[in-house]
């Protein structure tokens, strides 16, 4: 497994993070959440961030989306530095947080309404996405009528409907049971291979991180720092058999050692 913490930044224009730090003020003094984080992500790349809980993964994602200010350092998305919430971002959270009073279709249309995009063509895109996610026959139902996995798929559709260039996912499958979670990994890769969005996904499952990604950013806890960036040399499309590939387990073990877990 080759590592590439330092690699030419020229072709990595979708997201550029340069010596980013984040310090929170708390009652017990200052807490350093992120320290000197640097990496770059290329267009249409699928990158995952893996690390212990409390390593500032979510904070990092929020800063990239423009939801949180950084303490120092620079974040650029498509060459422009981020200073306010970005509408060019689709965001998926750990919980689906669908609006329970809207049908699935109306939920997916929420970004269109809020961004005041043309309704008619967007409705077609919403339907396409729902079809792609296998939800088209459930589009007139309310979220409470759907399973957790289906709700999260609807949330992914909602994140993509306004055709953002960036998809940010904060432990999107963390609340799902293991079987649904594996299923969702395939679903996500299928949607991603169709839409080819630059994707940054945070997880604390190493095997999920490796299975999904082109590259894995490994982070240390408190303060969050980039321990390593691991290139995943596995063929796409990824299949259930991919997990049997020795390169897969080698990669998982290498990352595990980095994070400090013991692997035999």
């Amino acid at each position, binding site marked *: 497994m080759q590592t590439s913490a330092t690699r030419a930044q020229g072709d990595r224009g979708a997201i550029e993070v340069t010596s980013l730090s984040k310090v929170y003020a708390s009652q017990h003094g200052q807490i350093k959440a992120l320290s000197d984080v640097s990496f770059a992500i290329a267009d249409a790349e699928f990158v995952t961030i893996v690390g212990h809980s409390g390593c500032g993964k979510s904070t990092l994602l*929020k800063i990239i*989306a*423009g*939801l949180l200010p950084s303490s120092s350092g620079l974040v650029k998305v498509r060459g422009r530095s981020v200073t306010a*919430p*970005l*509408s060019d*971002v689709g*965001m998926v*959270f750990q*919980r689906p*947080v669908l*609006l*329970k*009073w*809207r049908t699935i279709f109306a939920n997916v249309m*929420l*970004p269109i*309404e*809020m*961004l005041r995009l043309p309704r008619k063509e967007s409705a077609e895109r919403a339907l396409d996405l729902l079809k792609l996610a296998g939800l088209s026959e459930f589009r007139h*139902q*309310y979220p*409470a*009528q759907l399973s957790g996995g289906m709700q999260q798929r609807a949330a992914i559709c909602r994140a993509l409907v*306004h055709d953002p260039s960036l998809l940010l996912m904060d432990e999107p499958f963390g609340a799902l049971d293991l079987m649904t979670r594996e299923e969702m990994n395939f679903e996500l890769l299928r949607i991603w291979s169709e839409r080819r969005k630059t994707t940054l996904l945070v997880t604390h499952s190493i095997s999920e991180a490796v299975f999904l990604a082109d590259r894995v950013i490994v982070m240390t806890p408190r303060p969050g720092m980039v321990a390593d960036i691991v290139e995943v040399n596995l063929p796409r499309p990824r299949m259930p058999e991919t997990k049997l590939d020795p390169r897969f387990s080698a990669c998982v073990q290498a990352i595990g050692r980095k994070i400090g877990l013991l692997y035999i």
Partner: protein
Amino acid sequence: MGLNKTDISTTILSITATLVLWEVLTVVFNVPGFILPPPSAIFIEGVTRYHLYLYHSWITFYEMVAGFVLAAVVGVLLAVVIVYSRILRNMLYPQIVVLQIVPKVAIAPLLLIWAGYGITSKVLLALLVSFFPIVVNMVTGLVAIEEELLDLCRILQSGRWQEFSKVRLPNALPYLFSSLKVASTLSVIGAVIGEFVGGSEGLGHLIIIANTELRTSMSFVSLFSLSILGFLLYGFVLLAERLCMPWERWQSAAA
């Protein structure tokens, strides 16, 4: 909340049983009518003078509905103001709580002085008694939003109005309706207190007259009329809730 036929028939049966027992006991123990009239006497009183009760019921119903609607409007507006303006929250919330702590019965005579012996004072009292739970619940509903949703709104450049109309307001609806149910029953109390304290119309007024004349069956008909009115208003709120929140059926099924 699904009602099947067994549920309904159980309820009807138990009410009937209570009435029969009541009738039998008053006869067996020879209870004087001015202490506790049998249900049959109450029924006869109600039927023979139905126009009297209809008229006064209408007055009371008008007072409580007007008070209730005003309470809903005032309550929702206050909640919005409290949520969106820090200054107004600091100015208003403590005063609202103090106002709630003062017993409304004690305010009633004052209101009569200010608003007269007519309907207005009763409407105001019904408003005063029932608006507090609406404010409190509505504030909770407007604030209890998942943080991720607010992040989403910011990413989608929603602005305050869209965030309010598309997220906060619908999110507050279940809270609002549960407070409206409470308020609908409180508004009956407000209207009747007003009629007790002073006035010449309404079921509360009838009860006062009945008591001074020891016409207990008249008291009972008024009481039953009052509960029917309260039940009617409560039913309207339930109906509105069903119509406004069709998704809630699934929500409770999932929970």
